């Protein structure tokens, strides 16, 4: 296992290097410059600015300098926020996005698993139909629409939770719920399909024959074996949600990371674009790795190393 994880970390570093390189060169193709008043800047000012940000050098040199700085953990300073280090910018904005993202994933996946399981156990009756309806609605209604509805009814009309703004944990509940709907729906769908298959397996019949109750069979055999496809989708879903949802953040006025990314692109804030792209990629790869490790924990038949190493 350790060897496998080390190998995967090696691949992650390689992938990050490729992502950083491709992003760097694509970013340079974007129209305009990071200086909003370029036509008002004197030639001397432009020269100093280009020198200080290294923009006067050939692109390949800028690329090597950037990679060199990256190795030292230096992501540079933002153009749009004068002299703010990109790393501290990401860290400041990350906390709210991570909080609502993590809560959304926990609520969404747990409820989704439960909903899918209940639907499968009650296959083809009204409970199943209801669960399917909830899944379809969950997939069809975008999180921002749900966000607006939650905000209006729960916060504005009934005064149960804050409408928006970021004032303590209470402020994170509604955006988390809005974001949870997608993982809930997707997990429920996958869980139901897989569990229906598992429930038809021979070993389930065997478990019943051994005198296990329905509840014991479901908990001991069915649930665990149905989780593999669910875990497959949870990895990328978590990465997407943890990195924040621009629209939901905007609706609830959350100082998150999603908006920062869009803004950095609009303003040609090169260091921030690079920092956030690398961060997103890293997040995505870490989630895929966790997914793979979870596979082997849930189903010991899945081995992360080849047979020779495994034996």
């Amino acid at each position, binding site marked *: 296992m350790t060897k496998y994880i080390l190998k995967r970390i090696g691949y992650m570093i390689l992938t990050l290097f490729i992502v950083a390189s491709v992003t760097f060169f694509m970013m340079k193709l974007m129209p*305009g410059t990071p200086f909003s008043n370029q036509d008002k800047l*004197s030639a001397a*000012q432009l020269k100093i600015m280009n020198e200080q940000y290294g923009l006067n050098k050939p692109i390949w040199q800028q690329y090597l300098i950037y990679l060199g700085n990256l190795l030292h953990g230096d992501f540079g300073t933002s153009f749009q*926020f004068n*002299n703010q280090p990109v790393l501290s910018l990401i860290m400041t904005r990350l906390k709210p996005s991570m909080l609502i993202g993590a809560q959304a994933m926990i609520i969404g996946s747990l409820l989704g698993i439960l909903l899918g399981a209940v639907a499968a156990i009650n296959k083809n009756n009204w409970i199943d139909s209801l669960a399917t309806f909830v899944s379809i609605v969950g997939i069809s209604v975008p999180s921002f629409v749900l966000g607006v509805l939650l905000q*209006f009814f729960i916060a*504005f009309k009934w005064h149960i939770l804050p409408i*928006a703004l*970021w004032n303590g944990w209470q402020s994170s509940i509604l955006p988390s719920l809005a974001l949870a709907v997608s993982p809930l729906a997707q997990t429920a769908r996958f869980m139901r399909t897989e569990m229906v298959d598992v429930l038809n397996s021979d070993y389930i019949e065997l478990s019943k024959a051994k005198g296990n109750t329905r509840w014991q069979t479901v908990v001991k055999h069915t649930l665990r074996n149905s989780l593999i496809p669910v875990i497959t989708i949870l990895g990328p879903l978590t990465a997407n949600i943890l990195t924040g949802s621009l629209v939901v953040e905007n609706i609830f006025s959350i100082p998150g990371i999603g908006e920062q990314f869009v803004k950095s692109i609009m303003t040609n804030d090169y260091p921030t674009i690079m920092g956030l792209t690398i961060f997103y990629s890293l997040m995505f790869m870490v989630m895929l790795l966790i997914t793979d490790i979870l596979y082997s924990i849930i189903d010991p038949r899945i081995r992360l190393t080849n047979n020779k190493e495994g034996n």
Partner: protein
Amino acid sequence: MKFKRMLVASASALVSLGVLAGCSSSKSAQGPKNTVRIMRKDVIATMDSSLNTDIIGTQALSDTMDGLYRYQGKTVKPAIATKVVKPTNNGLTYTFPLRKNAKWSNGDPVTANDFVYAWQRTVNPKTKSQYAYIYEGIANAKEITDNKKPVDSLGVKALDKHTLQVTLDKPIPYFNQLMTSSTFFPQDQKVVEKWGKKYGTNSKTLVFNGPYKLQKWNGPDNTWNEVKNKDYWNAKDVKVKKLQYQVVKDASTALNLYQSNKLDDVILTGDTAKQMKGSKGFNVKKMNSTFYLEMNQEKDPIFKNQKIRQALAKSIDRTQLANKILGDGSSASLSTTPSNMSYDPNNKSKDFVSDTKQSAKTAEYNTKEAQKLWKTGLTETGQTGKKFNLTLLSDDTDAAKKQSEFLQSQLEKLPGIKVTLNNVPFKSRLSRSISGDFDLVVTAWNADFPDPSNFLTLFTNGASNNNGHWNNSDYDNLVNKSLSTDANDPTIRWKDMTQAQDILNKQQGVIPLYQVGEAHLTNNKVKNLDYGPSGTYNMVSLRIHK
């Protein structure tokens, strides 16, 4: 997909109904006492007055710092300077006596040296101030930003601790207005040097000499608080103890927060603004910003014909564009220079636009006249019967797309015109405008300082923003005179500028569309929210009705 769309549409309709229903059930509960809670559309990018470029930062700086002057209503009033100074030496020298009781929040006195230091720091090319160009006209400023002269050669010096003298290269007729700008605020050298690059990146790195002090602000924060500065020289006039700013991006969230009494002043946009128009607390702030259409004369020589330009101008129903298509508080405009910005020096109730309204009638919407002018223009240019396929370049925001579609429908009323829309991101629009890759482009200009010359110079021959390349020697002559030979005579200068605007209006060198307006809902407890000609509020005047 259809199902999804239906769900989205139903949900949106439900929300809209709910929002409207909510209007009648708004809460009248009191907010925190002696605090005004204000919405902002974005965060503060920097609190370094040398580096700030946007209105959010300008407002925060105006709340917490004080310069030589401050706007009170439409009038320039003394702030750190003890009086509004009249220039000597043919308009080339300004000598400002400064208040002796002004001090920074760390106890340091505010001295003439703080101005000298801040100004020299701003024009120093190493500071990379994107607004250093505003200093042009102050002796040697241009040469310093061009790195041709040393920083200490700037025409500003401290005659003593409390006397500041500024020398100009040429008279700047709007110099006193300029002195209200945050770009000219003083800085405490000791503090700036202590924090270096970190100065202005969070509240710990700052000291304040204005009515309020910024608290617990940490760079890209969505919320910031300002508390009354007891050390402010005019603290007795500051009656509101705390200002609480909150970034809200979504207009319906802003409305919900306002109606739940969580915010006292919010900005509405799009449909939300349209819905709330006419309701209690609704008001519109006219911004010093206009949108206009430029016609590329170099690419399409047909635009060199005056009647063709007038025909295009007359074919656009601006009232419909502003009220129905945008509906965000913007107002139809027949002038590229904004209204409510600058006033006749001999009659303060008369604004620049009302003084030039006669010539602006050239652009008034009239389809019949437009078609007649179009026909004559085509005959004059020998293009009768020809088809024109024109590309309309604009931004890619939702509002810009709607606007482009509307303009397309209006312009295509003229026979033979087909308009193709090209909506691109802001940076692309800018680079394509500069390179001349367009037939028609929707452009906006936001005033750097509240003087008509800031707009009029845009369309002089060879100006970097004159992307349509319209030119007129009489116009150039009048604009130049207003900034040189007539600069010291406000009456003649005003006449120069109104005459120049008349030429631009009559010739439709560019086609004005609308003046940007910001729709607000303001709680009736908030009084004297004093919005000045430079686009910021003077919070010294702010009061709470109890």
